[in-house]
């Protein structure tokens, strides 16, 4: 975009925030495309690590942008990336909240909402694909991913336990 990393961070994430239908998980592929491929701010490894750190941190998953921002430009980068990712949509939420009652039953509103469901599903599936490519660089990591997918689908276990097991498996030196 241009040479100033803070401006690039702001521009990319502010734009991305408006297309992130389905929240943080839908925005992962675009973050990856920008941070790893276009701008080459971080390696595949660092991106996968940032995702892992965001997952084990409390709070909204969108916090991964704070990690990317910090990696690019320290504290200022963290602040700018977070503000860019949350600012536009928060402003929109504030404005729409006052008029929501008027159009919540409108046919166009219902069409937009149900029309966006398959789009965000496709985006989140793409996130899983992109992350699997970053994180599963050998067969053992892929086995962990496959197993947790099954466990996550079949049970309602607290994700922290799954992360703990994954972390221990990693520590054991298999991966």
């Amino acid at each position: 975009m241009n040479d100033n990393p803070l401006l690039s961070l702001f521009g990319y994430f502010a734009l991305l925030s408006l297309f992130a239908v389905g929240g943080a998980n839908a925005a992962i592929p675009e973050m990856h495309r920008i941070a790893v491929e276009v701008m080459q701010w971080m390696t595949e490894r660092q991106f996968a690590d940032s995702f892992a750190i965001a997952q084990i941190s409390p709070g909204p998953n969108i916090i991964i942008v704070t990690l990317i921002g910090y990696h690019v430009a320290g504290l200022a980068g963290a602040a700018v990336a977070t503000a860019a990712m949350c600012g536009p949509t928060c402003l929109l939420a504030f404005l729409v909240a006052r008029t929501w009652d008027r159009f919540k039953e409108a046919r166009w509103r219902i069409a937009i909402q149900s029309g966006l469901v398959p789009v965000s599903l496709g985006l989140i599936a793409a996130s899983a694909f992109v992350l699997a490519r970053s994180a599963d660089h050998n067969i053992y990591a892929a086995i962990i991913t496959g197993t947790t997918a099954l466990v996550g689908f079949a049970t309602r276990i607290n994700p922290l336990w799954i992360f703990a097991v994954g972390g221990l498996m990693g520590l054991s030196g298999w991966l």
Partner: protein
Amino acid sequence: MSDSTRSPAGTPFPVTTLPSLPELFRAFVIVSISGFGGALPWARRMIVDQKHWMTADEFNEAFALSQFLPGPNVVNFSVVFGSRFGGAPGAAVALAGLMGPPLIIVTVLAFLYARFGDVEMLSRILTGIAAAATGLLIAVVAKMAAPLFLKRWDWAPLIAIAAFIGVAIMQWPLPWVFAGLAPVSIALAWMKR
């Protein structure tokens, strides 16, 4: 809010208390630091079950609005909820409560990672966590896809597959894929009804 200020027969607690700004802030701080793997269930527990600031229906409606908007749902929700009870200051306070503690924690983690990310042990642990977290995301996708793919096939699964191919395989920029697919999908949803 018509039925919420009274106490309908089915509701054990009347929703009469309105949160003050400090209460709003505290509530969202608690939601944010309890919310591993998604803050929504914690927001519901706090707002509907514990504080009785909203009925379950009101909560669902406010959350539907948050999902309707782009961006992180829980962040949108904090703004919608805060502004309903306290206008712009309420929205700011709820947002600050939700984002403040995680921002501090994650900034510390980012600092530690920048410092020690190359340490072999730490990087192994993170590799394991990333692999496990990816698996959980696949489970989320499967749960979301089940209702769409298992019922009678219509256009929706095709849109989802096209979005996946565009972003994951072709690696096109998200705004392009969105601009190409969202209008088609919305038009199809409009005509179906």
